């Protein structure tokens, strides 16, 4: 059975139909990419699935459970993680703390125990810090562990978001343009990182403009245009689809 199923999903902002009747499903353990020209509705689709927006109509199912209309924190409890196209890093915190926040749901969040500095809580927190440091190593940010987030370069922050998402120990992770704004060398590093994430067993859903990276990583690709599904299939299928070629060249048939 598919891990994530999307059926007839639509959202309207006033008169604008940002996503229209989109359906697809994603199998466990694959890398699934969503591509399309600017304004095709890719980020909106992410926002719908991760609960940031509520769909106007349609269904989303995770492991068979209907999840449309649930809030982002409820979806986080069900193992859904994401990163953002426009960085959403907590600049008021250190890098490692940003990663630790990712483990929020796995911790005892009791206010009174925290205020009293109970030893059990402290020990868990120390373990978590070690785990977060480990994750920063995994994404290649060893140099920044104790850095303040607002002192880090853009490329490092992109990867910090991935580390934070991984700290949730998610089943499925949505990466919204992880290579946007990066130089070619950094792009290759992120490409390798996404591969490593997928190899660790996490289902990856990717929005990305770098076609080399998309073709290199994806098991399946969904093409959106003007909020509608244009095509879906393997890299080769999508690349040879005449509608897709037309959309990307701007000549609408």
């Amino acid at each position: 059975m598919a891990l994530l199923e999307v059926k007839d999903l639509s959202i309207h902002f006033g008169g604008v139909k940002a996503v229209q009747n989109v359906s697809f499903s994603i199998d466990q353990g694959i890398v699934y990419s969503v591509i399309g020209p600017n304004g095709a509705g890719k980020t909106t689709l992410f926002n719908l699935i991760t609960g940031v927006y509520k769909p106007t109509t349609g269904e989303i199912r995770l492991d068979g459970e209907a999840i449309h209309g649930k809030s982002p924190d409820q979806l986080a409890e069900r193992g859904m993680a994401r990163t953002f196209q426009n960085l959403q890093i907590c600049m008021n915190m250190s890098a490692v703390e940003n990663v630790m926040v990712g483990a929020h749901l796995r911790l005892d969040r009791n206010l009174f125990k925290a205020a009293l500095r109970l030893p059990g809580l402290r020990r868990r927190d120390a373990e978590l810090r070690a785990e977060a440091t480990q994750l920063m190593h995994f994404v290649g940010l060893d140099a920044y562990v104790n850095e303040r987030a607002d002192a880090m370069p853009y490329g490092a922050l992109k990867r910090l978001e991935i580390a934070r998402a991984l700290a949730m120990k998610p089943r499925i992770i949505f990466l919204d343009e992880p290579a946007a704004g990066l130089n070619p060398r950094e792009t290759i590093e992120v490409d390798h990182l996404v591969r490593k994430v997928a190899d660790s067993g996490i289902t990856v859903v990717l929005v990305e403009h770098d076609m080399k990276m998309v073709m290199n990583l994806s098991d399946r690709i969904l093409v959106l245009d003007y909020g509608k599904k244009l095509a879906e299939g393997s890299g080769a299928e999508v690349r040879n689809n005449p509608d897709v070629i037309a959309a990307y060249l701007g000549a609408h048939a």
Partner: protein
Amino acid sequence: MQKKLNIGLLIVIFILLAVPFVVPNSFYLDLAIRMAINAMIVLGLNLLIGFAGQISLGHAGFLGIGAYASAVLPTHFGWHPLLAMLGGCVITGILAALVARPIFKLKGHYLAMATLGLGIIINITLRNEAQWTGGPDGMPVPPMSLFGTEIYSDKTWYWIVAALLVIAVWASQNLIDSPFGRALRALHGSEVASQVVGVNVVRYKVSIFVLSAVFASLMGSITAHYIGFVSPNFADFFHSIELVTMVVVGGMASVFGSLVGAVLLTALPQALTSFEGWETVVFGAILMGFMIFLPKGIVPTLAAKFGKGE
């Protein structure tokens, strides 16, 4: 990290121990007590404003509820002062929790408006229910009694308040560096990012609002017993603003900034009495000056200057 000596807290303890021996007279001891009480209110408020990034322009209202609970419940109903104090906290907690859910769907200036309105409604109520509260003139508060003895001496009050302050500083530090505190700071940094990692944003805002309100209520009770008198000015709009100003002048999201802000702004009106008639003008000008030249607050500005965080 966890082995690091808590130097800040040790300095606070040292200063608190030294104060009674260096103050020249009871006037300054009284000032120190009021500084310490304000410092505790500001610590709570800073968790809300500085760390969680949510404004409240009505916190004096909660202070007023605590103060009046300690005045009204023992006077009219014969409650023990400690029980009345607890009663004030419960009333405040329930009220804050009830309004917090709808209020914290609001952002920015709308949130400022709602909290301001709440504070003013509380203030007007205290002013008008004269049969219970003494109206605009206020009412006397029976003395606090602990273990069968009534507390009058400033020295005793000082040690009580100083001990509470040490606990409050320690607990705030713990809270900030905990999963709860990280979630608070995260929702300040990026609300949507904290949501997608599982932080129930509204619940956290409500918790910290209720916590800081109850804390203000408790301090209101203590102030009432210490002074022996309450008036609606406790819950005044301007008092709310003073408290917020203490947070910002000392430094948002800074534990020691809260202490510095409270100490300075409690002392300021005393220092200004020599300006005879010009106090308001000078006070306003000083507020503006602080905000224009030290918008980040004293402690964070100094910390940045000397190249280390807290």
